[in-house]
């Protein structure tokens, strides 16, 4: 991690009466520093910054969906498939992404460009189906929108 990232963790730590409360933000910062996932050295760095053990950091990271314990693609495409999105046709949207990217849900493209995953309710049920790309909501997304969306991301 860059020294600025460590300094940011120390700033966040001061907001709380107990420093462990900063672990979620610290892991989020470490994940960004390491290209979107948490390799073993990220746990050692966060542990050093917060005076805890790497195993404790790993136990937190493995509990929450937004921490990645394996490398992810440059772009993270998340398709909500919970009830409201399913009723609005999310499966066809997920299928369109799978076919456009040539991967199954849960996989990363060979060139490392994209990770596709189905996710649980994203809280956009009123404009379903919801797709979240790199933490930005797109709602609603229709199967016919998928090719253009992917093309735009490839061009970035």
């Amino acid at each position, binding site marked *: 991690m860059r020294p600025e990232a460590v300094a940011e963790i120390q700033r966040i730590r001061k907001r*709380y009466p107990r420093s462990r*409360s*900063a672990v979620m933000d610290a892991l989020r910062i470490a994940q960004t520093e390491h290209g979107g996932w948490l390799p073993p050295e990220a746990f050692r760095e966060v542990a050093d910054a917060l005076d805890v053990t790497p195993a404790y950091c790993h136990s937190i990271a493995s*509990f*929450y969906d937004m921490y990645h314990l394996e490398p992810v693609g440059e772009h993270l495409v998340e398709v909500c*498939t919970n009830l*409201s999105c399913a*009723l609005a046709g*999310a499966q066809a949207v997920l299928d369109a992404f799978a076919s456009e990217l040539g991967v199954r849900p849960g996989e990363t493209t060979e060139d490392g460009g994209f990770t596709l995953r189905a996710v649980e309710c994203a809280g956009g049920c009123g404009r379903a189906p919801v797709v979240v790309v790199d933490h*930005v909501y797109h709602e609603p997304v229709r199967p016919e929108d998928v090719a253009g969306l992917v093309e735009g991301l490839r061009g970035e």
Partner: protein
Amino acid sequence: MASNQTLLTAGTEDRDLTRLEEYRAVGGYEALAKARALEPQAVMDEITAATLRGRGGAGFPMGRKASLLAKDTGRPVYLVVNADESEPGAFKDRDVMRFTPHRLIEGCLITAHGIGSTSVFIYIRGEYLHEFEVTRAALEETRKAGLLAGVTIVLHRGAGAYICGEETALLESLEGSRGQPRPRPPFPPVTGLYDAPTQINNVSTIALVPKVLELGAAEFAKIGVPSAPGTAVFSLSGNVAQPGNYERPLGTTLRELIYDIGGGVANGRELKAVIPGGSSVPVLTPDEIDTPMDYDSIQAAGSFFGSAAIIVVDDRCCMVQLALRAAQFYMHESCGKCTPCRVGTRWLVQLLTRIEAGEAAPTDLELLENVCDRMLGRSLCALGDFAVYPVSSYLRKYRAEFEAHVTGAGCPFVGESSIEGIIAPIAQHAHPVPEVVGG
């Protein structure tokens, strides 16, 4: 009854209330000034007199909750706002943060004054990045305007876990632990965050507080129904013509919400089922939609108000597939602490999978009921029950459809259900599902 009166969304029609000056133009932070001129107990008396009930799910009166806070403990008193909205079908709190963050902040400051707290934490679900940024910008404006008056408000981001919407799991998560619920007692008003007395309320409840002070309890109580005054933001989704968030008085019927406000079932289809409070509550059938949406009426009808997230289901949907998809969600989100929930959610998924595949034994429907009975009320938090309510209620109310899956050659929709082949996130993982004994 002033049916068009809005409280949470008031002023958003023609103003950008994310900006302090715009919020002030509609009377923003005047209620805070009013509250700060009062004794703290007088503020809480007003909230109690208004019967402001929790908009997050349980409907517990906010004033009564505050009255349970331990006094003179020598520890700080914390206010924690639950903005971890994750109930499938719910998206009301997101709009509070996105469109009226100052109403939330003002509610925090009034409540903090009322309970004698100078330390507020808002736990925002991790996925709500934009909402976090909007709220953070609003908080910065409030700070610069000198309105915080010594109160600190920390925005704490979650990282993707439905269970953290459960109040004790939220506290664990906020303390930097895995979000697993605590045994109760002790309850949070006595031993909450950092072992100190803690008031926990939902975003939408806290954001209503300024209006309670502005209108006064008597005026507030004229809206809604006597047992549950005020408005709620109803989230319409699923097979409804005009999905979205609609603020209406409590007691508005499901029929009004779905047909008059939501434009009816989409594409002229037939109504098959209504899930009134988010995926965790028992389903209602079309003949039950004259039920008013308030806590007590909906409970009398055998379901729960939940987060007022109304999911409309049309006649193209297979109820076994819908139950399976709901069960997969709760299996994914079970924190694993209590055995009945951890194992039971897996059994529900496995049984429903084989019923849907036409591979179930005739006794599997009884086995499914049996698993539901053995899960209910047997875990530390309500997630174990939430996993049961959709499954047991769909099975009870759409029994013939379940039986057709067992006695026929599988799903009677033969590949034509509206949610056919939907992939749940758990299907991406390699969790082996233990075999159910029997069947």
